[in-house]
């Protein structure tokens, strides 16, 4: 074992000091030194995204970074989501979305998906479907076929938007997830540049109507 | 895997090229990642052998010394070669056997095999030096057939081929600078090498 150095990681709002070898991967430091096993390992080539966390707000694959490279950084892992201001009833709207829309089966890729979803919504609160798919294209899922994951993220976008609309963006702004301005606009427009002015985010299903759920509308009775 | 190619040395005549390419030290110097190429005597041990540093090559070296150490047909040589391919950087302990040397046609063939902790290879190689049609230069034709196994091979041809190309191009580039330093071959070196067979 080569010489260890001391690093400081602020994870989910709590500062931790750990001693790590220079080559210790961030994902191992999170999982084993900090006992936060929600972040997972699914491959050895940086392709699967199961290890995705937010580092200073940006989604990164923690298997592709040394712990020492994250010294001094703020890290958000899946365990921290339920403590975010937007988490009502113990769950963040993204987590709620995954449950309501059945966005998980075995659950192994889910933490990474939640992180990727959070990063997306922080930057783009009203994503189109192809933007969602692009944002999660670095996260592999073998169980769900992605369709319900997309729906889950849309659910969260709608939910966060609705709350921003009703509280003027106070909660969302505190969360750091979107600017307070967005709240005022949400009543009539979705926030997109080329908004067509169709059914609005607070009541309608601006993005949701793309997904006709067969067993609601189209099936035989 | 099969690799082959040609390299032109504009101002280096075939017999000069032959002398330099027959010098294990010159070859070692020109081959990036190669720590040593040394005759493999019975008492050679990988773990204990240390490469000689600072050995001179032509034009500084003594012509006789260079001729003495030239590659010999039928002899085994040990080479330690580190190759970097993507994230895999095996250090191959390689045994090379010079099969054939013909100093009329300037052709040399060799076989070899190398092993590193997670990869291995065996190869069949050769080179032939021709006169360039115009001027004084040489055209060096080289080929190798290699069976590669292990980690490094899993990366596949599309990763290995560019690396192989780069190694070869760097090698000949370095040899070329080496050789264009060699203003005049002491024809005695060439004759001495010839005379050894």
């Amino acid at each position, binding site marked *: *074992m080569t010489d260890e150095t001391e690093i400081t990681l602020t994870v989910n709002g709590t500062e931790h000091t750990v001693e790590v*070898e220079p*080559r*210790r991967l961030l994902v191992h430091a999170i999982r*084993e030194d900090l006992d936060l*096993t*929600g972040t*997972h390992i*699914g*491959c*050895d*080539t940086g*392709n*699967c995204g199961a290890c995705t966390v937010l580092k200073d707000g940006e989604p990164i694959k923690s298997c592709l970074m040394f712990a020492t490279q994250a010294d001094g950084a703020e890290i958000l*892992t*899946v*365990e921290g989501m*339920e403590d975010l201001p937007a988490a009502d009833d113990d769950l963040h709207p993204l987590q709620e979305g*995954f*449950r*309501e829309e*059945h966005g*998980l*089966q*075995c*659950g*192994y*890729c*889910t*933490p990474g998906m939640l992180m990727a979803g959070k990063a997306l919504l922080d930057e783009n609160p009203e994503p189109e479907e192809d933007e969602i798919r*692009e944002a*999660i*294209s670095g*996260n*592999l*899922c*073998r*169980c*769900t*076929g*992605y*369709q*319900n994951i*997309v729906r889950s993220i849309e659910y969260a976008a709608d939910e966060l938007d609705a709350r921003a609309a009703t509280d003027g963006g106070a909660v969302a702004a505190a969360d750091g997830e979107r600017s307070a301005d967005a709240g005022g606009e949400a009543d009539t427009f979705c926030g997109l540049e080329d908004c067509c002015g169709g059914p609005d985010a607070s009541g309608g299903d601006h993005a949701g109507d793309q*997904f*006709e759920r*067969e*067993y609601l509308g189209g*099936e*035989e009775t | 895997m099969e690799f082959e190619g040609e390299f032109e040395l504009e101002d280096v005549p075939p017999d000069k090229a032959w002398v330099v390419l027959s010098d294990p030290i010159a070859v070692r110097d020109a081959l990036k990642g190669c720590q040593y190429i040394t005759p493999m005597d019975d008492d050679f041990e990988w773990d204990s052998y240390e490469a000689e540093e600072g050995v001179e090559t032509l034009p500084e070296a003594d012509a006789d010394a260079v001729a003495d150490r030239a590659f010999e047909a039928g002899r085994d040589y040990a080479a330690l070669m580190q190759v970097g391919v993507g994230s895999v950087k095996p250090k191959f302990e390689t045994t090379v056997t010079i099969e054939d040397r013909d100093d009329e046609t300037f052709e040399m063939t060799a076989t070899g095999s190398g092993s590193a*902790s*997670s990869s*291995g290879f065996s190869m069949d190689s050769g080179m032939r030096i021709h006169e360039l049609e115009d001027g004084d230069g040489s055209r060096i034709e080289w080929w190798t057939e290699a*069976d590669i*196994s*292990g*980690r490094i*091979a*899993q990366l*596949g041809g599309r990763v290995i081929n560019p690396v192989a190309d780069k190694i070869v191009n760097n090698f000949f580039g370095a040899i070329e600078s080496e050789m264009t330093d060699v203003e005049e071959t002491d024809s005695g070196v060439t004759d001495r090498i010839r005379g050894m067979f």
Partner: protein
Amino acid sequence: MSSDRERAPDADTEYQHPEDDGPEPEKHCGHGRGGMGEEVNRKEDKRFITGRGDYVDDIKKPGMLHCEIVRSPHAHARVEEIDGSRAEAMDEVVAVLTAEDLLAHDLATMPTLMDDTQDVLVNEKVKFQSQEVAAVIAEDRYAAKDGAQKVEVEYDVLDPVVDAEEALEDDAPLVRDELDDQEDNHIFDWETGDKEETDRVFEEADVTVEEDMLYQRLHPAPIETCGAVADWDPGKDKMTVHMTSQAPHAHRTLFSQVSGIPEHKVRIVSPDVGGGFGNKVPIYPGYVVAAAASYVLEEPVKWVEERSENIQTTGFARDYDMTGELAATEDGEIKGVKVDVLANHGAYNAAAQPSKFPAGFFNIFTGSYDIEAAHGSLTAAFTNTAPGGVAYRCSFRVTEAVYLIERMVKVLADELDVDPAEIRRKNFIPSEAFPYESATGWNYDSGDYEKALDKALEMADYEHYREEQQRRLEEDADKLIGIGISSFTEVVGAGPGKQCDIAGIEMFDSADLRVNPTGNAVLRVGVQTQGQGHETTFAQIVAEELGMDVDDITVEHGDTDTEPYGLGTYGSRSTPVAGAAAAVAARKVRDKAKSIAANELEAAEEDIEWDRESGEFHVAGAPDRSITITEIAAGAYMNHPGGEEPGLEATNYYDPPEMTYPFGSYIVVVEIDRETGEVDFEKFVAVDDCGNRINPMIIEGQIHGGLAQGIGTAMMEHVTYDDNGNVTGGDFMNYLLPTANEIPNFETGHTVTPSPHHPIGAKGVGESPTVGSPPAIVNAVVDAMSEAGVSHVEMPMTPDVVWEKLDEVGLSHQPARNVEFSVEDGEHADD
């Protein structure tokens, strides 16, 4: 959780309960308590979405050591010497194990499910690249890896053979020279059907067609790799292994046999499993090595493999090289089907099949069609590749069988210039013909194939796309349309004990239901979810059958110390077998509940009725004299009827009388770019019939996932080898799983044709989508070019493969511009 109640209106209104009498089955809608047909949100989700899942690699035990396996870089080589001294010299390395060390404990080899013997650590000769040669046990995972690099192995490299056809040639290297009777690489031959009759039919037929097709080597690649934490307790002489297992009890029995530790002293625990798909059915050397190390060192030992180890050495799937033939009348009535298969089994015969089925259920290749004559033959070969042939979400080779027949039907349709939907309709087993015995001996329980096809055609807007296809051909459009159909029938739910066994153990399954005094219950089952939602669906079965609320039932699984013996989850068997056991156990409890109700209501037991809708027990003719299951539970413990045992519990071990036969029709519309060969999915319709549906939301999720795997299969996945036996498709850079960008939105529909023999009429559905979709996708791509004469495109249909085909028949387009690249200056110029 109020959401369950809110879900009730979405519930499946087509659930027809098998217990109902009368001409009109009653329609049930989950009754608002989370029963059958309701879209109950999954009870297991909470821990997964909050990062509290409990997977094998999350386990940390005091004193735990890490195991790293030293693997062979060569595909075929003799091991001359293994020198672990440099590794052992490291401070943090505790031990280096080789076959020699395992021999002392009789653990150097282990049996496979197909009666072969596999090396745990290589004894004399390496038979496939990355095979396990030695193991390093160290204090932390980094030291273990360092140690593994320091183990020096001297190999005498041999020529490998990776192709099955080459392996059967006379001069091929001998893979299994250690077997006494083995003089070549031939493993076995298998035959099914009636050769004579089939040959006669072919001779007399108006039309015959033939096509070669390869079902390429795939890997299940669940996102969680395999692993185990083995913990030998010398105080109790007990071995506990937490492992990624789809079948904990079967693994316990096998483990006990291999290790010699008596079964009652072995505990296997399958915690949360991050996807299985068949990958976690076999026993791998890593598990055995970890257990052996723990036993010797008396500390817990963790082995978790890397992704490249997973793809290169754990059970692969498929690798069936098939030639199919159909014989038909000139108006498209199929008279006979023939298939010949060359099966690559890798270096050992470790296929995970029921023991009497060396080729799995492949002989279901007559498919959804009424075909009188069938014959199949198969030859299996050893090669210097990893062992496998597991059921990757295929119910024991049903994927291969369905691929064969659905592709051949398309080939025939094209030959006769008949619409592929119509030719299917013409040949379907009619709905009145069930139960139907196929030419190869399967008893299909129920089906209504035309109904599913009609529904799919409607959802797919079939006529419109046929017109569009034609228009584009006429206008020489840039992108072609192709429409592919697959009307599949699968056989799942293994299975009746007399037919189906795993290493001799009959394939029943079990459920143990215990109701508490406070009216809630624990259901323990012998199957093992890896994402299928059992903690919800099985609770729904009990909620339905007992009148309890789904939230009041906890489902437990995975611990051999507490769960009743079961054969595990794979082959879509959980609902057909363990689901049946759960329903039967619930009904046994319901029977006892009736006697308690009688006692409480002071009525005769014969006069007690149970009302499915309200879930209550009442006196016949006096509905207001009723009692809930909660009150009954209290009575069972506090006022039990004389002459009976207190408590309220029942167990059922269910031996299914038959297999079940889910079916469906999938229609895929593709758009092919003539310049690049890229294939886009314009429409992807899946109509499935899995009998009565427990949770439509969970079923839909399963379908989506399987369809995505089907796209991976058809378009991009392939475990490839080079001539030196190197796995060139052995990690996620090269073995490509589809991402969200490659998967379209799916449109799902369903029909309901209950299974007549199943207690709740359900059939199982997990594998239908992986079985049914690849041929639909290939049929679609072929369809885009069939008028030009293309009859087949091999999987995976990467853009270069598709473009080559287009080019072959003059359908390709050249790029509109010439683009020049200059690498040196990094610029490109286009004209």
